[in-house]
């Protein structure tokens, strides 16, 4: 057996149960890999050495006692640092939460702990999940294991880098406009955003409440399924949680795509997409057709406006969600003669430029006289987008596109022009707007050796068919999701 850090969750889980390895050994392997790669990658903000060691020991004891709480039992897990963890620093990669210790665990975190997962550490992100490269982190950017001069994507860049490099077997992130899928694509791993409401947001530090979802980043589609099984399902602490039974994610997972209708979204393929990326995507579509799928071209006209609507809705909601960071009850506080000054000084210093920009944008879009033309109109456009998707799913079982218009770009390439950074999300934003599930599957490398991601979208609660098609894509691509991770000792 090679380095345990290179195992998939499924392989590790099988090994644990067979007795070929222990949770403690798994954790040691991940620790070693992190030690090797962190200097270059900076995927982590916090590593909980003691807590994870205790959890690994407990997981082994539990297994030996014959208990088996589930597929992530004993598995080292990384959590994006916008998921609150009790007693473990949670910063959202912002100065305003430097040193903040939450007094509670989010629901997803609780379910992971209850499921025997070994929480190894908190990963880097764009500050408050706003960004597409992780360069907006107040604690330094993370780097792409495939080429450390390039970005890992964002906002869940740290989680993606860790899984790609093997310093976590599975990670969780959040996806508001593509923040799981885009970094997964850029780092050559699997990343998925569930149906809105399938995974509880209780404990996810809110960016845009009607768009945010927690989801897994893994090396395989099967691992993503396992991760979703552990964290998904109704939570009474989240009013937007889906109250019905969760779909059987595995149904049809290995059935292939024969008889399925695959819709190619006109607005998300071709124009504005890097030619190498599109070529890889087209080749994947062709293979799906050969495997028995029917390919249909579908136009969803309102999808052209999804990015514009998103940059009104998300900032508007975030401007209210981030109002609580005011120096009164927790976090950073800067001096002010009056409480108003204290708050203004605290927030000006505590928030980075991208966050500041979005708060200003959102405040403006909601303000008197502008609400109807901006926020109000964006909400109506959102309805049109939902209708277009609903109509499309009458004619196709899944919809496909590239995940990201380009592969990983160089660090510093897009930081001067916010709009160019926003364009990274043009393919992923539509399914946040509709609330439907979507997954990115790595299908190959471009001529620079950078990974290309293929996106499969499905209707609400359509995770089973989404995973089914994704599994087929993965099988055909035969892509090894383990990055030739950059380390201080070159391989």
């Amino acid at each position, binding site marked *: 057996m090679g380095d345990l850090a290179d195992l998939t969750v499924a392989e590790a889980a099988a090994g644990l149960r067979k007795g070929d390895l222990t949770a403690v050994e798994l954790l040691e392997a991940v620790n070693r890999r992190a030690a090797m790669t962190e200097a270059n990658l900076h995927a982590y903000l916090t590593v909980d050495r003691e807590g994870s060691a205790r959890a690994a020991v407990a997981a082994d004891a539990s297994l030996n006692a014959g208990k088996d709480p589930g597929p992530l039992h004993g598995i080292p897990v990384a959590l994006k640092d916008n998921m609150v963890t009790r007693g473990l620093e949670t910063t959202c990669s912002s100065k305003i939460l430097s040193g903040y210790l939450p007094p509670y665990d989010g629901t997803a975190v609780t379910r992971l702990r209850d499921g025997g997962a070994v929480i190894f550490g908190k990963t880097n992100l764009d500050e408050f999940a706003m960004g597409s490269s992780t360069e907006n982190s107040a604690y330094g950017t993370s780097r792409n294991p495939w080429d450390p001069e390039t970005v890992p994507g964002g906002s869940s860049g740290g989680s993606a880098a860790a899984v790609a490099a093997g310093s976590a077997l599975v990670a969780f992130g959040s996806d508001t406009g593509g923040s799981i899928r885009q970094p997964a694509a850029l780092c050559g791993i699997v990343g998925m955003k569930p149906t809105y409401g399938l995974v509880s947001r209780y404990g996810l530090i809110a960016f845009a409440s009607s768009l945010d979802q927690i989801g897994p980043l893994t090396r395989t589609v099967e691992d993503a399924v396992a991760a979703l099984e552990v964290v998904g399902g109704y939570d009474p602490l989240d009013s937007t949680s889906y109250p019905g039974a969760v779909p059987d994610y595995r149904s049809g997972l290995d059935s292939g795509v024969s008889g399925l209708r695959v819709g190619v979204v006109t607005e998300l393929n071709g124009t504005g997409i890097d030619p190498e990326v599109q070529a890889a995507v087209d080749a994947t579509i062709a293979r799906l057709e050969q495997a028995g799928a029917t390919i249909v071209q579908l136009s969803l006209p309102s999808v052209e406006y999804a990015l514009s609507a998103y940059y009104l809705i998300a900032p508007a909601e975030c401007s209210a969600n981030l*109002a609580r960071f005011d120096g009164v009850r927790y976090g950073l506080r800067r001096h002010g003669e009056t409480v108003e000054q204290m708050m203004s000084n605290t927030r000006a210093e505590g928030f980075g430029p991208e966050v500041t920009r979005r708060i200003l944008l959102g405040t403006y879009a909601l303000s008197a006289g502008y609400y109807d033309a901006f926020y109000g109109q964006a909400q109506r456009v959102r309805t049109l987008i939902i209708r277009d998707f609903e109509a499309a799913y009458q004619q196709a079982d899944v919809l496909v596109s590239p995940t990201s218009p380009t592969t990983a770009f160089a660090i510093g390439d897009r930081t001067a022009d916010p709009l160019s950074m926003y364009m990274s999300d043009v393919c992923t934003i539509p399914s946040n707007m509709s609330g439907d599930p979507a997954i990115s599957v790595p299908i190959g490398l471009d001529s620079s050796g950078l990974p290309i991601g293929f996106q499969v979208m499905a209707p609400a609660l359509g995770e089973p068919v989404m995973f089914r098609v994704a599994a087929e894509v993965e099988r055909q691509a035969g892509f090894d999701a383990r990055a030739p991770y950059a380390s201080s000792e070159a391989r």
Partner: protein
Amino acid sequence: MAYEPVIGIETHVELTTDSKMFCGCQVNFGSPPNTNVCPVCLGLPGALPVVNARAVEYAMTIGLALNCSIAEHSVFARKNYFYPDMPKNYQISQYDEPLCVEGHLDVEVGEETSRVGITRVHMEEDTGKSTHIGEGGRIQAASHSLLDFNRAGVPLMEVVSEPDIRSAEQARAFVSELRGAILRLGVSDAKLEEGSMRFDANVSLRPVGAEEFGTKVEVKNMNSLRSLQRALEYEIERQAALLDAGEAVVQETRHWDEEAGSTSGMRSKEEAFDYRYFPEPDLVPVAVDDEWRKRVAQSLPELPAQSRARYVAMGLEPTTAGLIARDVEAGAVFESAVAGGGEAQTVANWLTGEVTALLRKTETGLAASPIDGAALAALAGMVADRSLSASAAKEVLAGVAAGEGSPEEVATARDLIQVSDSASLEPVIDEVLAANPEALEKLRSGDGKVMGFLIGQVMRATGGKADPGAVSRIIELRVG
């Protein structure tokens, strides 16, 4: 120039649910500071609100009691502004689609009843409390403030009236009636002194007969019904003086100062009023169907106004009816007494007079007192058949209240029963008349004053037990 005041009242009512509006923290006035807080009501990162079902029902109850329509689809909204006692720096409230709309409340001022429209009743959350440290505890001279978030997140209902109120007196009556109704519903303890019921007023003046509204001024910080009336009277005068002098009334918020007896302008910031309302994305809409609404409507208790009307129909004077209707226990005893044959006004007068005084002295409630409907009915009967005089009845009441027994027992034990039947009285009267022929002559010739003397003689002869009224009647018959 004669002006007509145009007044609207905005009332906030804290509900007496067990837990807060959006989380499971306890609702309790007087807990040690910051002991009833959790991630949700403290606005910690990652926390989410979940609506308290009972708070929704209580809100519906208030709306239905105020004759409102209940929205089939109702939405929560974020009201965005920064204030240190508001953890999220937005308040979860309702804006575009409130739960209850278009109701009314009938208000009595003296003999007149008027109808005040209710624009809306909606749900929101209360804020924490700030204590200002510095000179005199007033915000203007404070050096810093202390924050307690126990109250943050307590369910708060906002009741907005139409600007239908036309006098300070009517405003007071409106708030009093609203409070009485809310107490009867049992959804709040509505204690003005504790802040579980608070109100602001919007006041403007217009020339009598004009249709357009004048500039309105918001008045805050009135902590009692009395200060509400005083504040409005002051503000009406102030605005009238301005208008008479040809000056304009400034649209602003003014703060009532109870000691100074005046309102003063607060520093107003124009931006403060841009609340940037948008639908609350963390909460889903409330859908009320016919069945739910009917169930709540059927569970409504009788409100004071309805009790009042019923009591008047039973024969009470309106004022007495109002007093009895305000107190659920008194109402129950009153109704039971009348059902037992007691005369309505008599019983009611005892309840509002003697009984109230007696209970206050012993510091007991009516429910704990031996005075009940049966006792009052019996007592009323004894007054009606003249076996007790009015003053004797009061003594008997005191005895019953003290636990000495039933009215009959007390009257007998204290020897208060008066004699009023002819058979017993005639012989005594005849004796007295025979013994006082001059008095009888005077009476026969029309001198009414001597009647008192003769009655007195009969009273002496009977040891005070004779019913003076009966004696007087018999003597008159004798005189012819």
